[in-house]
């Protein structure tokens, strides 16, 4: 069975999209949260919570829509803890995020204990009419499953919301200058809570992608560190949903290539392939920061990581 080079690349990219989608949801969640000034290092824990919730709901109801909604809801509820501790109670966002990862790993491991050997039906791919007949692009992007399509919509909606609406401007301002927002009468608390929890819900959906599409079952620690990759990709994406998409697929391609290069006997160390995206991110961040320093525009949310309390100077 001979495949041409182009066919081979298409196959790699199809699987890059699949492997990249859970990371994309996670990264989008991180983008929303961090745009409002709150870092979430708890993504790995949230993904596990989302994955387990969706699996259990699908197992008992058979409905993917219910399963994914439940994953979003429960992950959002868990993120509330993070929001409470680091927005209201002013604790370190970084320490609180680490606590959230421990909590999520623990709670999912404990409650998922009895599910060994159970499976759900995987989500099947749907060919989109017209779009799927575009050469190359059609096969890569438009012969995927419903959750992948949902991720496209999410990227578009979040992009639009963040950059073309009043609400988006307000959210971004929370991450840049919360004092100013407060002085013009916007509630920093409300916006930050909303952004962090919605972000957490997206991460939960990313977790749901594992049992819904990639594995069809639950095991302890199912996400195997993808949440941490999403944490890094938020930066890679420069807090932008469009670039998040590119980053997530790049990472998906790195996984896919690690596997498929072995079959055509091209030897690249998998460990270098694994570290490549991170080296690229650091270089990109440095270049962008230097360039933007000259133009005097911020490359990242200026108040990222800082708690805000009314009437206090930092």
């Amino acid at each position, binding site marked *: *069975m001979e495949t041409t080079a182009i066919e081979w690349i298409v*196959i790699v990219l199809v*699987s890059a999209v*699949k*492997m990249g989608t*859970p990371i994309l949801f996670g990264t989008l969640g991180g983008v929303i949260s961090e745009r409002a000034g709150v870092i979430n290092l708890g993504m790995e824990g949230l993904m596990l919570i989302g994955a387990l919730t969706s699996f259990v709901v699908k197992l008992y109801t058979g409905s993917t829509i219910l399963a994914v909604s439940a994953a979003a809801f429960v992950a959002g509820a868990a993120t509330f803890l993070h929001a409470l501790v680091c927005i209201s109670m002013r604790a370190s966002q970084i320490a609180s995020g680490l606590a959230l990862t421990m909590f999520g790993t623990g709670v999912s*491991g404990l409650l*998922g*204990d009895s599910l*060994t*050997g*159970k*499976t759900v039906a*995987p989500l099947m791919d749907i060919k989109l009419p017209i779009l799927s007949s575009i050469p190359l692009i059609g096969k890569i992007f438009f012969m995927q499953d419903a959750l992948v399509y949902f991720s496209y919509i999410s990227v578009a909606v979040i992009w639009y919301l963040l950059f073309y609406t009043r609400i988006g401007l307000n959210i971004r301002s929370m991450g840049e200058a919360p004092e100013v927002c407060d002085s013009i009468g916007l509630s920093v608390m409300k916006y930050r809570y909303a952004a962090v929890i919605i972000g957490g819900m997206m991460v939960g959906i990313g977790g749901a992608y*594992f049992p819904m599409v*990639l*594995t*069809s*079952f639950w*095991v*302890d*620690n*199912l*996400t*195997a*560190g*993808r949440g941490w990759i999403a944490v890094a990709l938020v930066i890679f994406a420069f807090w932008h949903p469009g670039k998040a998409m590119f980053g997530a697929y790049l990472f998906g391609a790195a*996984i*896919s290539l*690690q*596997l*498929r290069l*072995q*079959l055509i*006997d091209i*030897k690249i160390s*998998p*460990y270098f392939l694994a570290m490549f995206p991170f080296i690229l991110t650091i270089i990109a961040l440095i270049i962008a920061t230097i360039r933007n320093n000259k133009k005097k525009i911020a490359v990242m949310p200026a108040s990222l990581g800082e708690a805000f309390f009314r009437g206090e100077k930092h």
Partner: protein
Amino acid sequence: MKVFRLHLLLIVAVILAFTGTTVFGKDIKDLKAAFIYVGPIGDGGWTYSHDLGRKHLEKLGVTTSYIESVPETDSIRVIRNFARQNYDIIFTTSFGYIDSTLTVASEFPEAVFMHCSGFKTAENVGTYFGRIYQAKFLTGIVAGYMTKSNIIGVIGSHPIPEIIRHINAFTLGVRSVNPDAKVKVIWVNAWFDPSKEGAAADSLMDDGADIVSITTDSAAALKAAEKRGKYAIGNDSDMTLYAPSAHLASAVLNWGVYYEYIAKQVAAGTWKTSKDWWGIESGITDIVGFGDMVTADIREKVNKKKEEIIAEKYFVFQGPFNKQDGSPAVKEGEKLTDDQIWSIDYFVEGVVGSLPKS
């Protein structure tokens, strides 16, 4: 390497039956056994299979305790803590515990330490493993009969001798009934990463494989095969439930029989250090869970081969067979020794895939 065979087992069992365990030492119910696991019990594979063994001991009345998800780098404290609490036997169930087990054992000469999949022993440290490669060979026979494309995929975790041995045994099984078939190997370069294992299965099937076999723990590859209407073979525990329509068979480990044997030895005071490598005749490993698509004819042929292995008329690594590059590995009428099987670092002919240079 000293190996216990069935008859030896029987003799021991008979002696025990006549003398009664309480005459020599304590009753098995007075024993305390500890287990140290490298992964969570919920991994559905390696640790799960050991925990089934622990539960078997519990049923016999042995007091057991365990700690799961103990990283190799933290194992010395955990093993020591069990030893301090006067556990009679401590089972350390990952290769990476090798030196921490020996270190703690030297500090606590009274306790018995059993290290799984290792090779270093001491006066109070024994090692043990099951010859699951025999079951792998038998699953290879099933795959050899069932493949239509003559391409069979195998997913490997990391290229260590244990995994290489299993891939070789599987390939020898395939080629013993279907010399034209090829076995393609993909390394996921991770100990545990279910979604990546699923993607690896997809890569293999894209490359023409119609059967996927795994050396990893999760059933992700089986689900991927089921989704495409292809076949798959499970590892460590019976994976039928995960993908009933794709599951040809699983090569499994039943630690319970071995743990019971060791517990009785320790209770009777007759335990001596050894390197135990039990085979399919003891029941520690087996091929189970044949799918409906595996015809009675094939099952019969597999069972016949199993009987030959038990009767020591057939050895998995018996000559003649070649290395991957076609150079002879073992000549007609010869076979690999246990030490050679244990530390095998090359692929046999029929495997397509590469090993890192060492």
